[in-house]
């Protein structure tokens, strides 16, 4: 492994080649990456390019996401301040680089669903381009290591899928940030400052999901991160998020990551699951083992492994507050049975379910319905996984949580269907994949009945709790704004700035939408959430400039 050296605020940092800046800085014991407008330190939170909280300045370019930026030898990295200086260089950038692509099938996302779709569409004979935001494919489930080493069967299975996709003849472009999707379809993206303009015949959206946070006092403190962020640090970069870790929320990912981090050498002070013990619901457990005996067995084995490592796993604990103390973080839970439970740790990982990354689907006008069981929108799809917009398909968690095995089956179905729609293959005989898909969906339904991902109503939180991480808007601010101009989520946004920041309302939006319906008594629908808007991720002005010339000569 090659060693590389860079500086952070002038201090020398040594890292392994391939590590993200976030992992390299975490490995060096640094966890404060930026300072907000109100002077609060922030660090890694989502670990997957969504929250925009781990911003640093790299070689003079402000606001780079440490989790998505590869550390490189000789880099000058600095804490990101809220108001970076822009310099006075008034020269225009050099002639921008542009690529225009016109594939039969554009696959957006290189995870379980996207890679499966890529392989299926390519095998049917379609010309396929696949875009992935990360520098290594595999997505959040198959999470590959930066150096290619394999930790376990899950990574090995992912490596096989990545290899098949690369060998399929599809063009897979990594490190791509998609920022625009328009009728046509027309997709606009950026890669290293160069513009990508894609005019595909069909699109398969496979953008996955991000983690639902637990909004409580202290959830923005450095050291508090999503469980997936901690998993990426370990699985992709062999970096532990801390020495003494608490994992909390609900769902199987928490147990899995606790076990991985324990195996990696961390002390897991507590795994706190919001739901009551599954042994209190033997019927639900039985249903789970009927629909997915192998996966149910895996779950039980994880629990046993944690016990063997003397990791305390407690059910019925709901996170209520995080405080900064001398030794790190003081983490407080409310017991379902009453009373509180406090643990000290240096890191807190949280996952309370998932939110679909459905921004591109919503932008393109795909019809959505609210799923109360999962607490998020589901995309309406046909048997072939085509959305309500002709030529636009959706697979995997972006269409509503379904898990990786279902995403793979959906990818195979959508890949062949999209290829057929663009004139390649006939997409007959999808029976086996559709049967597998039904089985995976039954398992998922049973699985989530054992967990509790119902979002905590934020209206009952202490009023100084941060609701909008980016704009530092508190629950009290939101309630006060609502009182002056009651209305819908858009009204609240304009009254308080909630959701106006860089993460574009991905964390506060769903919570604020619930805050509104608590007052209005209306049911949640697609319209309850923030209106979809370009850019779907923040995009540099110079990247838009790069796109402009190509688009103008195009039209």
């Amino acid at each position, binding site marked *: 492994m090659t060693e590389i050296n860079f500086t952070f605020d002038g201090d020398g940092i040594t890292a392994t080649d391939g590590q993200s800046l976030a992992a390299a800085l975490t490995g060096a014991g640094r966890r404060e990456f930026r300072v907000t*407008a109100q002077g609060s330190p922030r660090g890694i939170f989502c670990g997957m390019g969504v929250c925009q909280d781990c911003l640093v300045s790299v070689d003079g370019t402000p606001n780079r996401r440490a989790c998505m930026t590869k550390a490189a030898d000789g880099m000058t990295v600095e804490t990101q301040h809220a108001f970076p200086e822009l310099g006075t260089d008034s020269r225009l950038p050099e002639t921008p680089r542009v690529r225009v692509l016109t594939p039969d099938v554009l696959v957006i996302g290189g995870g379980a669903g996207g890679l499966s779709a890529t392989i299926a569409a390519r095998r049917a004979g379609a010309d396929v381009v696949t875009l992935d935001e990360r520098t290594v494919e595999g997505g959040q489930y198959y999470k590959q290591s930066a150096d290619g080493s394999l930790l376990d069967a899950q990574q090995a299975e992912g490596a096989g899928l990545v290899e098949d996709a690369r060998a399929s003849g599809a063009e897979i472009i990594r490190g791509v940030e998609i920022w625009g999707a328009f009728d046509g379809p027309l997709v606009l993206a950026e890669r290293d400052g160069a513009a990508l303009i894609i005019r595909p015949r069909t699109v398969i959206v496979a953008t996955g999901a991000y983690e639902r946070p637990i909004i409580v006092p202290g959830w923005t403190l450095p050291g508090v991160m999503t469980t997936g962020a901690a998993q990426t640090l370990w699985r992709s970069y062999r970096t532990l998020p801390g020495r003494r870790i608490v994992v909390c929320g609900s769902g199987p990912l928490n147990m899995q990551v606790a076990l991985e981090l324990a195996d990696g050498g961390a002390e897991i002070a507590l795994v706190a699951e919001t739901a009551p013990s599954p042994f209190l619901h033997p019927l639900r457990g039985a249903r789970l083992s009927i629909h997915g005996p192998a996966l149910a067995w895996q779950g039980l084995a994880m629990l046993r492994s944690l016990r063997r490592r003397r990791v305390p796993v407690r059910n019925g604990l709901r996170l209520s507050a995080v405080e900064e103390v001398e030794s790190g973080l003081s983490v407080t839970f409310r017991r379902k049975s009453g009373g509180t439970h406090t643990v000290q740790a240096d890191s807190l990982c949280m996952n309370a379910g998932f939110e679909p990354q459905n921004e591109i689907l919503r932008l393109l006008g795909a019809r959505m319905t609210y799923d109360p069981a999962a607490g998020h929108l589901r995309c309406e799809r046909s048997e072939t996984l085509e959305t309500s917009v002709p030529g636009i398909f959706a697979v995997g968690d972006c269409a509503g949580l379904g898990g990786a095995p279902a995403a793979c089956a959906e990818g195979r179905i959508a890949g062949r269907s999209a290829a057929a729609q663009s004139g390649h293959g006939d997409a007959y005989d999808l029976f086996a994949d559709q049967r597998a898909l039904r089985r995976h969906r039954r398992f998922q339904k049973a699985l989530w009945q054992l967990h509790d991902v119902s979002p905590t109503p934020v209206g009952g939180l202490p009023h100084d709790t941060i609701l909008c991480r980016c704009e530092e808007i508190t629950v009290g601010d939101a309630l006060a704004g609502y009182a002056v101009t009651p209305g819908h989520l858009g009204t609240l946004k304009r009254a308080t700035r909630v959701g106006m920041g860089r993460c574009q309302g991905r964390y506060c939006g769903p919570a604020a939408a619930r805050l509104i319906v608590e007052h209005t008594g209306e049911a949640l629908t697609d319209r309850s959430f923030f209106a979809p*808007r370009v*850019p779907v991720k*923040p995009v540099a002005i110079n990247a838009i400039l790069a796109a402009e010339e190509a688009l103008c000569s195009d039209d």
Partner: protein
Amino acid sequence: MTTDLLVIGGGIVGRITAFELAKAGARVILVDAAQNAGSTANAGSLHVQMQSRFIRIYPEHAPNVERALPYYKQAAECWGTLEACLGDMHLVRKGGLMLAESAGQMAFLEEKARREETKGLDVALLDRAELDRVAPWIGPQIVGAELCRDEGKLNPLLANMQLAKACADLGVTCVTDRVEGLVVTADRVSAAGQKGHYRASEVVVAASWGSGALVRTLGIDIPTAPEPLHMNITEACDQRIDHLVQHAERSITLKQFKTGQIVIGGGWPADDHGTDQVPGVRAGSIVGNVALAARLAPPIGALRIIRTWAGMNTTADGASIIGRLPGVQRVVMAVPGDAGYTLAPLVAQMAASIVTGRDPPADPSPYSPARFAA
């Protein structure tokens, strides 16, 4: 619901009107449709000099705008008074620059500045050297600019909230409903909404582009039309752009808020998706608008655009529509002709003074809706 006075439209004009009427002692109900309405989507430019965009797109309306120039200047000053009275709106009045990239554009600005000066505007022409001193961030191709010292900018989110709070403090009742028609009888005016009926002795129509359709039920044809316009905003950076920035020939406004964010807009089109859907953003608008900004102000190129949105501008014939409807009792119009946010305080105060019978801040007669009488 029954009240003294009814205001239809809860954008900036409606809010200031309701505030002025309540301040005069009236019981006021403010009804707003809330979905995709005319305002609360504004970007906060205080326009005084003639916008080149307007002259280019609506040449037939340009004489109306030119006649009204002193009134734009007065409106920009009204904003200062409002901020002093209601609280911080991040108002900055350091002037506006209209940039030129060629000798031809400079000649256009010279002629424009000459005409604006005769209307009492505080304008000056700057060459490149003078421009470098006040705006060191401009691109190398800029040859000069017109500076209009009367112009400025404010943060409309703050201003909207200050007005909403002021209305609440004065007891204005705010209702979310879409009013679909008006009926005037001998002793009152009734407004039929989708959810309820509202009765008052007089109504002020401040429903921007929806105003025309609303009064058509009374037999008056006022051609208000929605013009959905695109806007972009960046993440924050250090304070360096003082002016409201425009271009002599191309559609753009660019300004920096006190939050450090840069707002880029200036008249690029968006798609109107009807009254109950938000307007759609066009690829050509985000790309064209932002690329133009990058060329005019290259140092902003490293910043990221974090959000775009579209708001509805209102067009009629270029002049504001203020006053009583011809031949109809109890209905007063309050619709700015262009640059609705800039003109809002003056339009609202003039409409309110017609209702209360007090002295108007400026003569409303040139803006009377009587000009639309059949």
